[in-house]
């Protein structure tokens, strides 16, 4: 064991002066820089952000990438399956297929042809199970809709029941969802922060009255409030906007109030006031920056629920009126022909799920970055 023990002569004391040990070797980071470094390291949040950027670009430019209008109806091309050159392996080859089973092979074969109106020239049949093993015979029919209807253009996401291009409509619907996201954030930031901040900062009777109002508003379920607001106004983007403005800021106001109450009696605020700072300066320079992290986190969490709410309202028929496209109305339309044409439901459903997941993951990432104490 002795030979592992280093000789004392090998050690030379480091020349430490007081300045040396106090020296800061790493660049000093502000709270924001530190937070953004943490956020950048979060793979999930970055993927979420990337997905949102891509979806936003598609929502802005997507409708112009082909020539079909949002309301352009043409019953001769209704319920076309999706077709993209080169993406046939993903099932986007412009065909519909279905498996039919019957007692004998011939019956199954004719049922399979019947399924697509006996357009034999455009149907390829394939025997899945010839019925010789005692089971039912099964025949898969694949119907090339584009060839049968002699349609040259491709509909990337297919068309809906009225022949409207689903690609254009999906991205128009995405615009609505993103508008709602923006709106929810703005309402949270403006009304929620102002209400909570004023209530806590001025305190006393102001606070008392404002809190009683909140206590009553909180008792009313958001859904009920929103539905009632939409009922007196015409359903449409405006009534959803107003409904969100009434109900969307309460949680934020409560959180900001709690934080400001905690902060306003701290020494740095007292110091600032002693030096003669006005209320507006204290609020702007000292209180709001200190609550900002929490405000951003909470805003991000309220966005997905607002998007869900719009889609939900449109889904039950209280959102955007019929010809307009919202992801909720598109999904609702998709349900009507789910059994035979699942593609009508598929694309809007995937897009809204992606938006919701991306916002939620990004919100989680922001929370971990701004407030590591709250990290799960």
């Amino acid at each position, binding site marked *: 064991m002795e030979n592992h023990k280093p000789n004392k002569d090998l050690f030379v004391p480091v020349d430490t002066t007081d300045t040396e040990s106090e020296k800061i070797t790493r660049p000093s980071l502000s709270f924001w820089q530190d937070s953004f470094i943490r956020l950048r390291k979060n793979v999930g949040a970055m993927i979420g952000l990337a997905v949102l950027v891509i979806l936003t670009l598609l929502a802005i430019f997507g409708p112009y990438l082909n020539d079909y209008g949002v309301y352009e109806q043409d019953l001769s091309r209704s319920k076309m399956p999706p077709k993209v050159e080169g993406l046939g392996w993903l099932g986007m080859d412009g065909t519909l297929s279905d498996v039919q089973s019957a007692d004998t092979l011939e019956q199954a074969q004719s049922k399979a042809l019947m399924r697509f109106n006996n357009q034999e020239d455009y149907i390829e049949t394939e025997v899945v199970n010839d019925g010789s093993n005692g089971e039912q015979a099964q025949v898969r029919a694949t119907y090339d809709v584009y060839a049968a209807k002699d349609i040259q253009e491709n509909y990337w996401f297919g068309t809906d029941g009225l022949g409207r291009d689903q690609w254009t409509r999906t991205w128009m619907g995405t615009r609505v969802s993103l508008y709602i996201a923006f709106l929810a954030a703005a309402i949270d930031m403006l009304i929620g922060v102002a209400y909570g901040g004023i209530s806590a900062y001025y305190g006393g009777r102001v606070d008392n009255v404002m809190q009683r109002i909140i*206590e009553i508003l909180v*008792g*009313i379920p958001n859904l*009920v409030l929103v539905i009632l607001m939409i*009922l007196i106004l015409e359903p449409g983007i405006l009534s959803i906007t107003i409904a969100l403005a009434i109900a969307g800021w309460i949680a934020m106001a409560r959180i900001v109030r709690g934080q400001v109450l905690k902060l306003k009696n701290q020494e740095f605020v007292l110091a600032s006031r002693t030096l003669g700072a006005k209320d507006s300066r204290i609020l702007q320079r000292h209180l709001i920056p200190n609550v900002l992290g929490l405000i951003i986190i909470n805003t991000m969490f309220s966005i997905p629920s607002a998007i869900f709410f719009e889609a939900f309202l449109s889904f039950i028929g209280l959102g955007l009126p019929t010809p307009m496209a919202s992801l909720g109305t598109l*999904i609702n339309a998709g349900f009507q022909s*789910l059994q035979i044409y699942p593609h009508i*439901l598929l694309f809007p*459903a995937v897009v809204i799920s992606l938006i*919701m997941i991306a916002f939620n993951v990004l919100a989680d990432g922001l929370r971990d970055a701004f407030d590591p104490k709250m990290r799960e």
Partner: protein
Amino acid sequence: MTRYIIQRIIYLIITMFLIATFTFFLMKFLPGTPLSAADKLSEEQQQVVLEKYGLDDPVPIQYFNYMVNLVQGDLGISFQFDNREVSTIIMERIGPSMQLGVQAMVIGVILGMLLGLVSAIYHNGFMDYTSTFLAVLGQSIPSFVFAGLLQFYIGVKFGWFPVALWEGWEYTVLPTASLAIFPIAIAARFMRTEMLEVMGSDYIVTARAKGVNKVGVVFKHGLRNALIPLITVLGPLAISLMTGSLVIENIFAVPGIGEQFVKAINVNDYPIIMGTTLLLSFMFIIIILIIDLLYGVIDPRIRLAEGE
């Protein structure tokens, strides 16, 4: 504690009163008339119908009558179904809604707890990442999209369970599953956070130091304490289930309150809309109250803090 309960009940009454008033006046300003064929009826015929339902009285009198009836539990008569009391219609339809809600809640919370527990035990392991990922999916994807997936794959493609309607327990499987996914996700995430926090606390270290084995620590000391805060999410979850049931009942054609509510909105059946709104609000407020009180009963620390 008694003072607190009384204060809460007073708030409850004020809120209910305001909601009832609010609902009443909003309904009065609704576009459209309750007469489905208004343009085909003569003035006199319209007058007769309006009189029958008391709709020709001045608004303050209608309001007064409405409130008096409401206190007696009379929600009025439906416009849609001839001479049927709204309270009867709601009572008939509350069963399926309640059943779905309770099933989804119980299944959701239990599965979610297990998922969260697994996450916490294998913290930062493969199981943790998988279940956290699933929880984010469950929290994000709208229930009606899940309903679509289940209906298409399990109902149509595989045919394991009926696609829609309400004729036995197997009809409840798909709607319950669609509704339960959100509670599963929320309970799992919450449970994971709480469990991690509890497992890091001093009494757990003490228990380990005293020689309690890992399983004992997790279930006896950890789980019990992590369960307490879980009660706080039950309220919001119950409310999200009430909201969710509006769409889910429609998708699966379940004869419940939600389905009725959406139909009533489409045909301007004011009494049903008002009755359902009030019922939903009332349930909402009661659930919040019960959970706040329960919280104090279960966790003595909160009671002590309030008593000081």
